[in-house]
């Protein structure tokens, strides 16, 4: 009996992990094959992504974006005159598998560089192997600015650091709403903890005051305790800064609005998930967040519109979020450095990456220097209006907290 119940539990956990992305991975399948035309002489680039598991919400779009870029580059003649073989392994969001696939990339596939992952855990699990092998590692969506210091000199970020987006959020708040803020963050996840921390530093630096700071656990569904404290404030702050994960954003925002707190809410790129916005309805008005690009078919830049259309044709649906664009940019960024390096030598590519200046990505211009492997990019602030993304501002923050 007992064994049976527990085994059933195990089965359901396994199936849950498998099911999460199943729907979308099937649509992704045909594209990958055409991208990778394994010829005798190809340029092998690794793509490490958690295509299954919790992180696949972000990794799957990033992987699809990257594959699309590789396909486009191959259609235009490849890199250094050779086609790109973009090899993808699913890390399953298990750290032991992530470390193993990193070794597979290095030893079996013999890739000249690795692109991938959207979370710090996975980057740090794969990082030591890649660093030891001495090949460049570009993370598509990892945003902790501490990553390069933790991994080593072959590590690059394609996205801005959390310190930059927090500073942009703080600046946007000060410029548009005022100098008092309430700060709420999810203390169960590195990303939100860092984001909250950086926001506080940047906001205080700009002359703002945090009237109340609060946190919650990652699996919280009832925010009434936090809300009661906000309502007890003698005066409501100019805005609320809520650093939340995609799966919590909808609940927090809805409960704030239901409790009559209608002031502006600002957040980070965890908000960049259309599903909660549809579910929240009117509650999502007066919500602003920093992210990598305005993911919209009509409102974005011309380059983004082109990407949006190409992605929609390739996969039969619009890009899920800005991580698709980050994956897309990562491959182009890497290939740009590869072309400038003129060879597949790891040190030459690394040097070329470090010399990248104003690379015109669809998520913003990317610049690296030898001691700055986290790009100084502009941050897009999205303002939500009636369930639609509108451009709030493009900010290059002036006061950025140290990583």
């Amino acid at each position, binding site marked *: 009996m*007992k*064994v*049976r*119940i*527990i*085994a*059933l*539990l*195990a*089965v359901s*956990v*396994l*199936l849950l*992990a*498998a*099911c*999460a*992305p*199943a729907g979308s*991975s*099937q649509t*992704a*399948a045909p594209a*990958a*094959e055409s991208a990778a035309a394994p010829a005798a002489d190809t340029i092998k680039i690794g793509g490490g992504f958690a*295509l*299954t*598991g919790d992180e696949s919400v972000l990794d799957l779009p990033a992987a699809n974006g990257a594959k699309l870029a590789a396909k486009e580059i191959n259609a235009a003649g490849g890199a250094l005159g050779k086609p790109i073989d973009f090899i*993808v*392994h*699913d890390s*399953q969001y*298990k*750290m*032991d*598998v992530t*470390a*193993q696939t990193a*070794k*597979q990339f*290095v*030893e*079996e596939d013999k890739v000249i560089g690795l692109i991938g992952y959207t979370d*710090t*855990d996975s980057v*740090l*699990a794969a*990082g*030591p*192997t890649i660093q030891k092998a001495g090949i460049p590692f570009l993370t598509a969506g990892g945003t902790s600015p501490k990553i390069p*210091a*933790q991994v080593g000199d072959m590590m690059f970020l394609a996205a801005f650091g959390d310190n930059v987006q927090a500073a942009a959020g703080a600046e946007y708040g000060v410029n548009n709403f005022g100098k008092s803020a309430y700060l709420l963050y999810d*203390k*169960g996840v*590195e990303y*939100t*903890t*860092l984001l909250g921390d950086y926001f506080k530093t940047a906001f205080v630096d700009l002359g703002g005051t945090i009237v109340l700071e609060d946190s919650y*656990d*990652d699996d919280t569904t009832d925010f009434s305790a936090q809300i009661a404290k906000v309502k007890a404030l003698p005066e409501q702050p100019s805005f609320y800064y809520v650093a939340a994960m995609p799966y919590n954003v909808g609940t927090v925002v809805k409960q704030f609005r239901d409790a009559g707190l209608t002031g502006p809410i600002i957040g980070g790129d965890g908000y960049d998930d259309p599903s909660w916005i549809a579910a929240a309805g009117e509650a999502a008005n007066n919500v602003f967040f920093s992210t990598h690009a305005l993911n919209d078919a009509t409102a974005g830049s011309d380059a983004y519109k082109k990407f949006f259309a190409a992605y929609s044709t390739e996969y039969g649906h619009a890009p899920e979020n800005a991580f698709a664009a980050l994956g897309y940019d990562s491959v182009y960024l890497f290939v740009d450095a590869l072309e400038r390096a003129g060879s597949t030598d790891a040190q030459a590519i690394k040097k070329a990456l470090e010399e990248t200046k104003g690379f015109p990505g669809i998520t913003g211009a990317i610049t690296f220097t030898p001691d700055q492997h986290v790009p100084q990019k502009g941050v897009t602030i999205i303002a939500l209006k009636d369930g639609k993304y509108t451009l709030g501002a493009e900010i290059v923050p002036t006061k950025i907290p140290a990583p």
Partner: protein
Amino acid sequence: MSPGLRRVIASLGIVAVLAVLLYWLSVYGSSFWQGLAINLGMFLILVVSLNLFNGFTGVFSLGHIGFMALGAYVAAILTLPIASKQAYLPNLPGWLAGLSLDGMVGPFPVGFLFATVIAASLVALLAFGVGLVLMRLSGHYVAVATLGFLIIVRVTLFNADTFTRGSRTFSNITAYTDLWWVYGWAVLAIYVVWRLKFSAFGRAMAAQREDRWAAQSVGIATMPPRLLAFVVSAFFTAVAGALYAHFITSMSPNVFYFDLTFRVITMLVLGGLGSVSGSIVGTVIIVGLAEALRRIEDVTLFYGMSNIIIAVILLFLIIFRRQGLLGQRELNLAWLFGKSTSPSNKENKQP
């Protein structure tokens, strides 16, 4: 030759073959295959030690991964080089901030050994305290209570951010773990569990598992054998945690949760609850199958298939062979020498 001597020789023979294989792998194998073997060894320790509790005592723990998490964090804090401590754990209390067990004697990282033993001992002590309370429960209640323990550990790790960096990834751990460490500990774990199974304690465990009232009526108490199993299995689970931390070199509390719990339980149930050799067989099959299926996924692009297939296998197993591949029996070492029976193997025929 007496049967006892023959068994000793057979066991030593197996260890010698293992040593040769390991040597060959560590010299000629790529780090990918070494890594796979290390993963296999870590799961072996986890499954065998979990089997000591879940299989032998008949009550189910869902909280062992909590012990693994604690073992990993304690050992990692102990071995973290002082420079990294200042960078990543700046608020550690003074005595811990200045302590780093990264000493080497020649090529041998003796500090890592101490850190592992200290971490595992502390965890075993904790398991003793927890066990004193939880082992009074019976049946499903133990599973639920240990699950609660796992959740408590996770929340504690999140909130003790002075020591664990909280939700932030704990990184830059020195990569001490290699094949020899893992298989050294694995052989020790298997040996200890094997000896325990056929000791007086092991028979007491089995007796109270089969019929608690009957066992008590002949003077076999429930508590001591259960508690012993709990503490020893917690010790080795913590060792696996320390090995994990020094292999992957980074971790966060999310790693040690349901996903890992059920991966270990799948291996345990497949091999057979209560069989040491079954645990080994189950672990080898699941680790091998997961790797093979992962490779097939890469070719077919049907990602997630490995989880589905393993889940379906588990379903069929529960329907058609609930006791697992080996049940409570052991693979017989004596067949190596052409003898069909071994005295230690008769009493475990289970309906």
